[in-house]
């Protein structure tokens, strides 16, 4: 109850934030954003046609009017249809967000779990060879450009120049109509193709984010290891491993969880446009990027708004997670 009250209060507090996000997004992406007029005209246009298209796109309206329209869309969650394809924005999101989510999730989980694991190992062996190796790995990983890794991984894993284990690009097809697959066959089919397509992108994003994660988590854990209660636990004969995994980790969870939850909305909504571009994944990242570059404002507006909303929810979720982890946290202050 207390938690729900808190969440509601927090939601109300986040209204100014949403307002700010929409205003920034509107000013930058919509008002000063790309002009779609000429993309919607033929090879040879007349001034009247230009006028007519601008009118249909609402470009002739004043700033405030257009912003208020946007706010109305935000409030009603109805962003209308994409200007270029005409598809309903809601159906674009429904189609692409799950795909981005499916692509990003394994990498997200593995790179965080692995990051925490490596950080624990490094922190446990602080100053020793293990620590140094992990940290060198992390710094090297951090220092590589994303683009370099995407290029290298695609060539290594997916092409005939390299191992050729995985498809270069593509995404899971539904089972063709004419095949009647049993339950387990269906599961196997989706499982198989899911991993087939998702593995190389997953490895890529793990490689890219693992260094950062490990370093951050190690710093957090090391800081926690200097606390008095760790010395106490040691003095009472509790094993180092147990201290790390039980005592230190739970205390370190607050910054760790903050980082994880806060980055989640960007993983889901913003997707990963470079990855989706290179691996031909029909996700929301690429759709959004195309929308920005094409000036497909309804899509941009919807994505930005949803990201902000989910971000606010993520903030609330982290606060709730704090309370679950740390008994000292209270919502009634």
């Amino acid at each position, binding site marked *: 109850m207390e938690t729900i009250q808190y969440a509601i209060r927090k939601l109300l507090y986040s209204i100014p934030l949403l307002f700010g996000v929409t205003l920034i997004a509107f000013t930058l992406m919509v008002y000063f954003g790309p002009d779609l007029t000429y993309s919607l005209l033929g090879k040879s246009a007349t001034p009247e046609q230009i006028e007519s298209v601008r009118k249909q796109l609402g470009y002739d309206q004043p700033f405030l009017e257009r912003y208020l329209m946007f706010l109305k869309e935000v409030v009603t969650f109805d962003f209308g249809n994409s200007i270029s394809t005409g598809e309903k924005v809601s159906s674009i999101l429904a189609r692409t967000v799950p795909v981005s989510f499916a692509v990003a999730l394994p990498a997200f989980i593995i790179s965080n779990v692995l990051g925490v694991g490596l950080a624990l190992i490094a922190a446990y062996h602080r*100053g020793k060879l293990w620590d140094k190796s992990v940290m060198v790995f992390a710094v090297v990983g951090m220092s590589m450009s994303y683009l370099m890794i995407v290029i290298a991984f695609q060539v290594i894993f997916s092409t005939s120049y390299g191992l050729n284990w995985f498809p270069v690009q593509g995404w899971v097809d539904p089972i063709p109509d004419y095949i009647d697959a049993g339950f387990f066959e269906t599961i196997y089919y989706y499982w198989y193709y899911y991993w087939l397509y998702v593995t190389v992108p997953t490895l890529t994003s793990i490689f890219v984010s693992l260094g950062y994660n490990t370093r951050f988590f190690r710093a957090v854990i090391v800081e926690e290891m200097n*606390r*008095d*209660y760790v*010395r*106490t*636990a*040691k*003095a*009472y*004969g*509790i*094993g*180092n491993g147990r201290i790390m995994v*039980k*005592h230190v980790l*739970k*205390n370190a969870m607050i910054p760790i969880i903050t980082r994880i939850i806060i980055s989640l909305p960007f993983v889901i909504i913003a997707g990963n446009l470079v990855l989706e571009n290179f691996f031909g994944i029909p996700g929301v990242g690429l759709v959004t990027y195309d929308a920005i570059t094409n000036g497909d404002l309804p899509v941009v507006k919807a994505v930005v708004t949803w990201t902000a909303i989910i971000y606010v929810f993520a903030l609330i979720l982290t606060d709730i997670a704090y309370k679950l*982890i*740390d*008994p*000292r946290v209270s919502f009634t202050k």
Partner: protein
Amino acid sequence: MAQEKPLLTVENLSVEFTTDSGVVKAVDDISFEVAAGEPVGIVGESGSGKSVTALTLLQLVPDPPGRITSGRIELDGIDILSKSQAEMRQIRGDLASMIFQEPMTALNPVFTIGNQMTEVIRVHRKVSKKQALQLAIQMLDTVNIPSPEKRVKQYPHELSGGQRQRVMIAMALSCDPKLLIADEPSTALDVTVQAQVLKEIHRLQEERNMSMILITHDLGVVAETCKRVIVMYKGKIVEVAETKELFRNPQHPYTRTLLDSVLTLRD
């Protein structure tokens, strides 16, 4: 008593620390003994090496930057310094236990009192969780914490400073150690609470006939609890004496300044 083999023997112990400004000898060639059932005080100002000595007894000095360069520690017939960390773990909290200065941070804030106490018990004793909890409640009762059944379910921040220190004592004693090392157990507490906690430690030490090393910068604290006092200054033992003898006739000039400060405060 004198003929009996002492519980703890420390011989020629030296500990060094590597710091930004070079290598510092924190403990410099000290030797002392603690007999079974004997309460001994180690007194000195901060930085005199008394805490490091205490930590060294349980091999708790962080390495690096700390390093034991020489010496021998024998506790209940065990050569402490030859033991591995894994072997030490069985000794810590069981044969010898420790109480720390800062009860606010020495307990893990995110686990209940009961959780932390049972963990210690179950590390050293083959008991069920339920039995361990029972034992924990019993120990809390022993250290005079009211309604211990309730307390075990509480978190450290829900307890007062004095209660927290009592919890520490209960935890330290839960496996019946032969040696209790109390590192400034009352310093961080309010003056009134200080006295109560010290009284409690004193009582338990006597009841259980434990050996105890009480580390403090306050000679007044030692006066009430310890038979014998070791005075440390700049990593060296400068004086060892019976408490009464020390107060009556301090040998070392440093001891005298320490005594002066106690007396001026008492005035």
